[in-house]
């Protein structure tokens, strides 16, 4: 049996893990980091994924895609409010967002596939065998379209997705394996872009989810944005700089806000300091934890409503919860911990690394699927009610939310007019009465034999499988014949599109670590050449002619090295460049400092 890996495909970071002999283990990359930032850079040199792409982000924001998980299974109208935070242009085709980079457009599953491929390569390098099967995690509150998009991403990356598993339940598997917990457990999972709460009952190795709730548009990103908005206002007031006008500065502010938020989890105060572009000075401000918490208080409260609903759906009171588990990097914020503790009246567990626990759980599930673990079994639920449109734009529910999956519902269809040959069926997901307030999943036309009205009897089965994904089949009750149903997803790629994308994915040549290292080195070389040329323009009069000469030589040498296929040569060229430009950099730094000091004096005078 080929090894199955477990993948946490996160909004901010992704990880891959596997079942080692002594338990689940996350796989680290060449830089020793287990987390791969979920960022993709589509550079002229090729594809960058993870940390190198994160470095590339401030340099070329329009070609660097992050937080793509927020777009999975979505149309543009769904993300309209947050468009200003993203530096890249979005389009829409067939109900699917397309991200424009240069001349080309990419669907969110394609971008996710690039991240998955990186994880696949990483696992293959570590385990020394080809990896073709995976368990991938999704937020529990993901709807059918978002799950299908994740499955498509796996396909495009060359992975057979054996199971889509919910993140909080994956975490519970990792915890359950470790502690052999029994009783009712609440898993509070606040990630980079999504929030989930799941209530489980653990008994003799069975992990039965009683209820789940959440918000697929609430996560660490939103906490960052509160800080970003403050900083944008502040920079405008104090420096007269409009951050929105510069995508590079916007990304800088975003990354600094994220860093400050993280520091405030450990310290009561954090200093934010970075230089503004074009010699506009330095932005500096100390943030206190109290200040930050005041900015995000309502976001924290937003997570409480799903918690109460999940409890009520599970038929439990807070006092009946035996354990509370925290999952997701965002649960490191003290304000979250104290609020969760207050709600459940229990000190939450966070013994396992909240960043890694979901990937570890996915690996445990991979072990179960591989038949290596017959003790544990996960019984999960569908997070949202499923229904079909009926007369008067009303939804008739077929499968209620929090129903244990797999589950199916049958519905009989007939005709109203003699000779009618079809019925249009519209499938929806959501908790509201009216069609317009729910999520449209798909439409299809059911074929009926041309007979007198009310004579045809075609039974349609709506089955939600163990991945939480809908499958539709139909059969003619009179003839006993089954009928294939062509379901057109409202917000998803067609099978043909996925096929094309699988073929296209091979065009990104970087199939091995070596090629990847060359691309990374080339991108870095481009950056240093560009920076040096800019510095030379400013510093021509500040350094001797022979120094300028040797810098030009170094640039040429690096250009030659860059054309070769050896990343070590390129790295050597970069190191040489850094050496010969060292003095120039110092001189320029002094000049900038002097300028800054003078302008400060000037402002003191004018104030």
């Amino acid at each position: 049996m080929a090894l199955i890996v477990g993948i946490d495909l996160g909004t901010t970071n992704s990880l891959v893990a596997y079942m080692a002999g002594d338990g689940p283990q996350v796989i680290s990359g060449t830089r020793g980091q287990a987390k791969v930032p979920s960022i993709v850079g589509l550079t002229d040199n090729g594809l960058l994924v993870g940390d190198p792409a994160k470095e590339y982000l401030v340099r070329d924001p329009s070609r660097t895609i992050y937080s793509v998980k927020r777009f999975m299974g979505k149309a543009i109208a769904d993300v309209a409010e947050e468009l200003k935070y993203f530096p890249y242009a979005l389009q829409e085709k067939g109900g699917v967002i397309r991200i424009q980079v240069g001349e080309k457009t990419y669907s969110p599953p394609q971008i996710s596939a690039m991240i998955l491929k990186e994880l696949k390569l990483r696992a293959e390098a570590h385990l020394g065998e080809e990896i073709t099967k995976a368990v991938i995690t999704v937020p529990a509150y993901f709807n059918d379209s978002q799950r299908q998009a994740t499955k498509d991403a796996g396909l495009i990356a060359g992975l057979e997705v054996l199971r889509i598993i919910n993140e909080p339940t994956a975490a519970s598997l990792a915890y359950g394996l470790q502690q052999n917990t029994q009783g009712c457990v609440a898993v509070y999972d606040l990630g980079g872009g999504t929030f989930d709460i799941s209530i489980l009952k653990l008994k003799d190795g069975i992990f039965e989810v009683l209820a789940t709730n959440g918000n697929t548009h609430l996560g660490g990103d939103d906490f960052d944005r509160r800080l970003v908005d403050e900083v944008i206002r502040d920079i405008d007031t104090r420096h007269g700089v409009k951050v929105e006008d510069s995508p590079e500065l916007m990304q800088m502010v975003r990354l600094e806000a994220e860093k400050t938020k993280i520091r405030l989890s450990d310290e009561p105060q954090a200093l934010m300091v970075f230089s503004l572009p074009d010699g506009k000075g330095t932005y500096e401000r100390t943030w206190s934890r109290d200040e930050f918490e005041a900015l995000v208080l309502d976001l924290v409260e937003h997570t409480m409503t799903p918690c109460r609903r999940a409890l009520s759906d599970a038929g439990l009171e807070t006092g009946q919860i035996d354990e509370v588990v925290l999952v997701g990097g965002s649960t490191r914020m003290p304000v979250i911990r104290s609020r969760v503790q207050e709600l459940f009246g229990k000190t939450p567990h966070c013994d396992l690394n909240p960043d890694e626990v979901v990937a570890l759980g996915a690996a445990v599930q991979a072990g179960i699927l591989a038949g290596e673990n017959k003790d544990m079994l996960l019984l999960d639920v569908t997070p949202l009610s499923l229904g079909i449109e009926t007369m008067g734009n009303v939804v008739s529910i077929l499968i209620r939310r929090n129903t244990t999956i797999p589950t199916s519902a049958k519905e009989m269809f007939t005709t109203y007019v003699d000779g009618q040959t079809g019925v249009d069926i519209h499938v929806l997901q959501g908790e509201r009465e009216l069609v317009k307030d729910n999520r449209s999943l798909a439409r299809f036309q059911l074929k009926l034999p041309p007979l007198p009205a009310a004579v045809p009897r075609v039974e349609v089965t709506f089955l939600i499988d163990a991945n939480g994904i809908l499958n539709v089949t139909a059969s003619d009750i009179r003839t006993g014949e089954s009928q294939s149903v062509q379901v057109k997803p409202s917000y998803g790629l067609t099978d043909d599109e996925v096929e094309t994308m699988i073929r296209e994915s091979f065009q990104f040549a970087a199939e091995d670590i070596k090629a990847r290292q060359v691309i990374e080195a080339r991108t870095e070389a481009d950056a240093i050449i560009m920076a040096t040329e800019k510095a030379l323009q400013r510093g021509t009069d500040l350094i001797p002619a022979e120094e300028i000469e040797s810098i030009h030589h170094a640039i040429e040498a690096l250009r030659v090295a860059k054309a070769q296929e050896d990343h070590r040569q390129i790295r050597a060229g970069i190191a040489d460049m850094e050496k010969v430009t060292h003095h120039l950099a110092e001189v320029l730094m002094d000049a900038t400092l002097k300028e800054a000091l003078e302008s400060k004096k000037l402002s003191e005078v004018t104030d």
Partner: protein
Amino acid sequence: MSEHTHQPESGRARELPMARSMCWHCQSEMTGEYFCGRCVKVQPLSKELDYFTCLNLPRKLNLDEQALEETFYALSRSFHPDYYATKDEGEKAISLGNTALLNTAYRTLKDPVQRAEYLIRLEAGSAKDIRNSPPADLFDEILELQEDLDEFRSLSAGESDERRQELLEKLQADRRTLEARKAQMEDRLREQFSRWDALPTEAEGEATVRSQKDAVLAGMQEILSNRTYVKNIVNDLVAATSPTAEPGRSAWH
């Protein structure tokens, strides 16, 4: 647009829980309960299998909840798709179908109201829908309540605050009355449960037992349809009078 057909086939429980007496795979005579004795492949559960038989319980209304859960967990371990990921397509499909049926059976029997509704459909000769009808003695009160509710909804906050407040208090009082009424109905339902469970098992031709059964079923059906009606009004009242309540409907029956 469509007609519901969730009703199971009427009639008595089948003796055999399997769809056929021969293994779908090796065609040998079925000896095992869920797995072929010869090739050990999982066998499909019969579509006509009733939920009580599926979960190995007598057709009673006061259930041993612990036994129900234990059987459910044990059968989940036998059928769940997670344990069939490495098996062939045929076995995967059977695992999926069996688990879907098992989950529906468990969900239906776990909830007392769904359990009673299911039993009525199972026992009633022709599959009858349980209608929502108002309790006869509450008819006038409910009419008045609906008028108040309509008026309350038509008044937006800010205008005629006094009348709004008056209606709000009245509706809240109505809600308490109806909730108490619903609880009463549930008590009466439990009495019927015990009556049902005490009836002797029906033997062929015993017309008296059949008519006793029908009487209990009819009694339960009336309570259930009144209860559903009252429950829906209570939900409307909650939605209209407490704006923080969850929109839409409750996940529970």
